[in-house]
């Protein structure tokens, strides 16, 4: 009897632990929304989201330039990151001789392990002068940021799409080859379409990472608050807006930064749920 009681007790404790892990997410949402929402209501959601002026000292808080900046940078990163990531994952799952696969795989692991501040620093020292000298503009630009971000999201894209290509039943490949397709046709026409939902999930997660990156972007983007009009313009993203000004913000200004966090949180949650649904469909 005592043993049974103990077992029940332990089960309840584990349940409690599992739910407290989840409750962290709820806690995060509660506190960020609690700090941010009042300001959004105060100045109106429309003028907050669509306002183009961000002058905290005068009490004008419009984050449209940051939203647009975030999407430019992310879009740029995906433009380069998707083809490169897909090619690497195909290389790893289909083409690679074992030794090359091992080198590339550990290389990608190292890439995932390099601190983001070091990416930012390298971008600042190496990429920014290159962009400034060859393409003009300030160098601290969306282009430099996108290039660095595309490298930073590679590990995410590669590992998840590689998994989803590898998880396909071997009969797909065998069937395509038996019908006379070449190796490349098999990859391009059969394997990639079949692994589509996993690949899309990996891209969405990579997009989430790109939108969420802060420190590297503070160092590279130049942080000007204005609507970007070309890839050579400097820009500010939602994350860098928080990262730069959080150090000294007080009152409404601080609340506005939390409100920026609310917008970021909502966008990321949307992307995450999408990716989770997609990858569940893959396993089902």
């Amino acid at each position, binding site marked *: 009897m005592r043993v049974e009681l*103990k077992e029940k007790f332990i089960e309840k404790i*584990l*349940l409690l*632990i*599992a*739910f407290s*892990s*989840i409750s*962290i*997410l709820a*806690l*995060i949402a509660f*506190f960020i929304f609690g*700090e941010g929402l009042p300001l959004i209501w105060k100045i109106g959601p429309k003028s907050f989201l669509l306002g183009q002026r961000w002058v905290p000292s005068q009490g004008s808080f419009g984050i449209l330039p940051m939203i647009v900046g975030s999407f430019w940078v992310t879009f740029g990163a995906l433009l380069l990151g998707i083809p*490169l990531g897909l*090619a*690497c994952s*195909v*290389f*790893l799952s289909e*083409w*690679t001789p074992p030794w*090359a696969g091992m080198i590339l795989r*550990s*290389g990608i*692991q*190292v890439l995932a*392990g*390099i*601190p*983001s*501040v*070091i*990416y*930012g*620093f*390298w971008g*600042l*020292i190496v990429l920014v002068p290159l962009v400034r000298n060859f393409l003009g503009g300030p160098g601290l630009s969306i282009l430099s940021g996108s290039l660095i971000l595309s490298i930073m999201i*590679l590990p995410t894209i590669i590992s998840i799409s590689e998994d989803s290509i590898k998880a396909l039943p071997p009969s797909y490949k065998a069937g395509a080859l038996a019908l006379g397709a070449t190796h490349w046709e098999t990859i391009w026409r059969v394997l990639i379409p079949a692994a589509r939902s996993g690949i899309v999930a990996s891209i969405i*997660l990579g997009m*989430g990472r790109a939108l*969420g*990156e*802060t*420190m590297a972007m*503070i160092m590279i983007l130049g942080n000007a608050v204005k609507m970007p009009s070309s890839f050579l313009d400097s820009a500010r993203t939602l*994350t860098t807006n*928080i*990262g730069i000004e*959080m*150090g000294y913000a007080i009152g409404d200004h601080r609340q506005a930064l*939390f409100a920026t*966090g609310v917008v970021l*949180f909502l966008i*990321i949650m949307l*992307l*995450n749920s999408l*990716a*989770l649904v997609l990858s569940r469909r893959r396993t089902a």
Partner: protein
Amino acid sequence: MIWMAALSTMTVMALIIIQVLSEGLPVLSLRFFLESPRSMGREGGILSPIIGTIALTIVAIIVATPLGVGTAIFLGEYTREGKVSRVIRFGIGCLAGVPSIIFGLFGFVFFVIYLNMGWSILSGGLALAAMILPTIICTAEEALRAIPYALREVSYSLGGTRWQTVTRTILPNAMPGIFTGIILGVCRSIEETAVVILTAGSSLIIPTSLFSPVRTMSVHFYILAREGISMEMAYGTGAALILLVLLVNIKANFLLNRYVRKKR
């Protein structure tokens, strides 16, 4: 074409590492590791950031490991797939995608202000713990799943209760996998800048208690580089940071490989 992609990825990685190491390694010396930074980091070494990094990481791991492994045991051994486990998994998936700056904001308003812990090792460690929790849960779950079902059957058939099965049979076998997750968590805590800068402050004084503010190596590197205090010191810190992360990564890889081999 495909070879090109793989090659260029490797090249970029090599470029980044070589750039930082070639400028940074000459700065490294025993004194660099054993002295605290002087005059904002222009001179001296990186002793206090090293201590800060270690302290924050330890707090994060101590908090996140029991929570993470407990959650994984609950998901793997105590529930069937159903509504409850689906909700928990979804929540963990979402938590894994939350950007670090959000963890920073949360840590700032909840630990630093609401719970009144101030900028401290404790606040920073707890915020980091929340951030690395999904990593630890997912790796531990994988490790539990990799254990052959026969082991559980044997334990049950000998009259073992569920908890006895978990503690005497499953956990010892899953240890290397769980440990890998913990090391990945260590890596993420070492790398992280945004969370730490908002929750642990950036003091250069050697901490004396859990409530002292600290600066980690990543934050130190960031401040040196961004404010242009000293490129030499920045490179040195960067090189130390890369070496540390590589070392921890290699250790994790080694463990994982040994673990996989043993299972086969």
